């Protein structure tokens, strides 16, 4: 069955797996893993140029060229609305006016849990300035609705803490968010292995964003391939509609025509 494309703001995608570019051993591994993932949207962070570094040092954007991938600059490391807004403005300048960003405003170092007050403030400023915001948020359905009504183009609740690999600890709240939303809902953070990605998709989510689950695997390129399949499998299972759960057994083979009874 042909799936519908994933539509985020003004853009259309076929892949529902979004990947980060952090924590890889080198840019070659980054390149191979991203190719294996089949991702079309790739997140990057915005940081100071290392002044004095060798000018010919390979650059991340030469491995993930904006002509080939949709670059999704993030605001990782921002703990207040102002630094997140500055980061997005710099990213837009860096990427020649590209206005799609991943907004994340964090609460504390220990949990990297989103600070919703600052997230809402930054989202308002950025939307008014013409940005398309994919927003990292808590799994609070009311906050998710608020972000959507402000004009965020995708809602991205965490499945568990960033980089924890604990999986989807909150399937119930994620599915409530999905049920309420008219914009895409993507699980961002928490996936540890392929089955977690499949679970997120089986809940009806529109996509999954991950970084550490691939980059910190023993074999990141193989894990990227596994994640691609898991997202596709989870999506197909969701579209197929799972069987109802039953408390007791229900034989698969005919219960008539026995020759031994």
């Amino acid at each position, binding site marked *: 069955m042909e799936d519908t494309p994933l539509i985020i703001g003004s853009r259309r995608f076929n892949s529902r797996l979004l990947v980060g*570019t*952090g924590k890889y051993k080198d840019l070659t591994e980054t390149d191979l893993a991203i190719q294996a993932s089949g991702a079309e949207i790739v997140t*990057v962070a915005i*940081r*100071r*140029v290392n*002044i004095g570094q060798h*000018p010919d040092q390979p650059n*991340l954007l030469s491995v993930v060229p904006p002509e080939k991938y949709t670059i999704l600059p993030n605001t990782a490391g921002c703990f207040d609305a102002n630094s997140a807004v500055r980061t997005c403005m710099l990213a837009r300048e860096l990427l020649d006016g590209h206005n799609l960003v991943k907004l994340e405003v964090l609460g504390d170092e220990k949990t990297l849990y989103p600070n919703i007050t600052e997230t809402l403030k930054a989202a308002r400023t950025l939307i008014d300035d013409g940005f398309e915001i994919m927003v990292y948020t808590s799994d609070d359905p009311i906050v998710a609705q608020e972000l959507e009504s402000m004009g965020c183009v995708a809602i991205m609740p965490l499945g568990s803490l960033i980089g924890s690999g604990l999986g989807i600890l909150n399937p119930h709240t994620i599915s409530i968010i999905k049920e309420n939303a008219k914009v895409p809902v993507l699980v961002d953070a928490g996936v540890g292995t392929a089955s977690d990605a499949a679970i997120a998709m089986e809940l009806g989510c529109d996509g999954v964003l*991950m970084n550490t689950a691939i980059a910190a695997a023993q074999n990141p390129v193989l894990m990227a391939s596994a994640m691609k399949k898991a997202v596709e499998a989870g999506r197909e299972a969701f579209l197929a509609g799972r069987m109802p759960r039953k408390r007791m057994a229900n034989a698969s083979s005919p219960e008539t025509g026995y020759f031994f009874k």
Partner: protein
Amino acid sequence: MHIYLNGESKDTSCTNLLALIQELELEGKRFAVEKNEMIISKSKLAQTPICAEDQIEIIHAVGGG
């Protein structure tokens, strides 16, 4: 003239941002510049003077989730 470049104290003889970018061998590469928390577009680098105690940030994309 004393400025702050990416948070580091620095003396420069460059009088505009394009000259600074050229001195740092960044011309032609992908970067973005902020001066005193204001974005300076690439087309305006040459006409943007550097003043004493300016806080200049030059950023690029790095690996991240």
